């Protein structure tokens, strides 16, 4: 070594020193796992017992039973109806609510209560909203439609208001300088700048409403979820698997359809 003129490095530094923050995080996670397993009463015996149940359940789910396809089809049709109607109404309302909630167009006295209302629409899970509507308007599709309208407003109106707040104000000033009325300002300077994003939010919400419309039925708000829940309660697991396959197929088909629509409009 010495005749080659190379001296071995004595005090070399580890290029990857121990990061105490990461180590601490790992210890916290491990401690948390121990604590939850204790406090939630999880145990291995219960878990392995469940795995045996899972075997029999899968056995009973296969083959899927499509013999009651009429029931399946009526639930599916109702889910689609709920999704389409609630998306149209919800998107229509969000157009106005979003405009009123935009801070650069409206005075605080309008925008602050509007933003509060939109935040309230967003803060509860659709299932909880669905329960309240089922109690107030009864079982059936109407409760599902009202629930998904609330969900659509909470999502689209918020994003639409944010999109309006990001627009360039030069065009707004230019239209205002011509002495245009308020509606003309909105129609010819604000909407053209945000319309493509609004279409994007709306297609996303249509997709999300379709997924949720297969779920709100669990609490009695119409659609395929109700069929699914009653099949679960009657232990008709082969019918359950038929419904699940239908839901997955519907969502895959919908994604294919929305890709087609998107390619038509992006040309």
């Amino acid at each position: 070594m010495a005749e080659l003129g190379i001296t071995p490095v004595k005090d070399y530094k580890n290029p990857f020193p121990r990061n105490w923050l990461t180590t601490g995080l790992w210890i916290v996670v491990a401690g948390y796992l121990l604590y939850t397993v204790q406090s939630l009463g999880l145990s291995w015996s219960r878990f392995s017992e469940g795995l045996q149940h899972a075997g029999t359940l899968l056995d009973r789910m296969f083959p899927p039973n499509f013999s009651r396809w009429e029931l399946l089809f009526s639930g599916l049709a109702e889910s689609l109806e709920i999704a389409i109607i609630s998306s149209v109404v919800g998107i229509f309302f969000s157009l106005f609510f979003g405009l009123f909630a935009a801070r650069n167009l409206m005075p605080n006295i309008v925008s602050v209560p509007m933003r509060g209302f939109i935040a309230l629409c967003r803060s509860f899970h659709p299932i909880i909203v669905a329960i309240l509507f089922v109690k107030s308007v009864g079982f059936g599709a109407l409760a599902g439609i009202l629930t998904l309208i609330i969900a659509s407003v909470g999502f689209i109106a918020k994003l639409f208001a944010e999109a309006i707040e990001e627009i360039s104000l030069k065009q707004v000033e230019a239209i205002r300088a011509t002495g245009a009325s308020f509606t003309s300002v909105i129609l010819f300077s604000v909407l053209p700048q945000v319309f493509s994003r609004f279409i994007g939010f709306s297609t996303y919400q249509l997709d999300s409403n379709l997924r949720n419309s297969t779920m709100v039925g669990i609490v009695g708000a119409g659609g395929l979820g109700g069929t699914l829940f009653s099949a679960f309660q009657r232990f008709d697991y082969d019918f359950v698997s038929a419904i699940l396959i239908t839901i997955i197929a519907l969502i895959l088909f919908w994604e294919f359809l929305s890709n087609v629509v998107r390619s038509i409009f992006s040309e």
Partner: protein
Amino acid sequence: MSEVDSNIDRHWQRFTLKQKLSRYAVYLSFMIALILSLRTVQVIPEFFYDAPEQIADLFSRMWPISFEFYQISVHDAMIETLNIATLGTLVTLVFAVPLAFMNASNIVDSPWSHWVAKFFLVSSRSINSLVWALLFVAIFGPGVIAGVLAIAFRSVGFIGKLLAEAIEEINMGSVEALRATGAPWGAVLLKGYWPQVKPAFFSIVLFRWDINVRESAVLGLVGAGGIGIVLNNSMNLFEWQQVAMSLIAIFVIVILAEVLVVNIRKHLI
């Protein structure tokens, strides 16, 4: 001269005939779908006119809110809900991280692995968490374990997809440098990929945790533990004042979780 004139007279159109026709076809089919749904949906109009009155009645029954109910059962159920959300998010990582590796084309370069990973990620996302909860309640019986697994299985698709996208976006320079030194694959993952993915990873996981807190609050309606069970019991007994207390507790927790996540994400990015 005549040639120039004919060029000037040509009418400029933004879209070709095919584009116009396909757009009109989309509008038309959407209108048909809307009209069909409005005609066939089974809605009893009397219920609709009655709705504001009924909603007002519901809220009047909720008042005064029964605050003493918080100590009796809401507090413990709320802690259980938070634990379900957190434990579910941790369990998800066990499945989501390997699937994200399989789905990222700059880690595993094989179409088979991408298809397998895509299949699991898509089926996890297209089944709603309540439906997962129904399945796991059927398997493990009512209780916390079904809730944790429902949250975990639902989140796999979300975390796996976003994490794979984050991995695919990294700069491969440091990975190639590590590979050139002959580092084993574990070291390449830990010192090449991980430091670049780390901020995205934590922000995805925190975002999902926030969603999971919302979702775990309703899982109890199908018997999978948490505040939902308390809510369901009070509703079945028509104890609307207790329902109001549970709803307020959920509202506060959801807002707190969102504020916490937004603040941590600000520091991360």
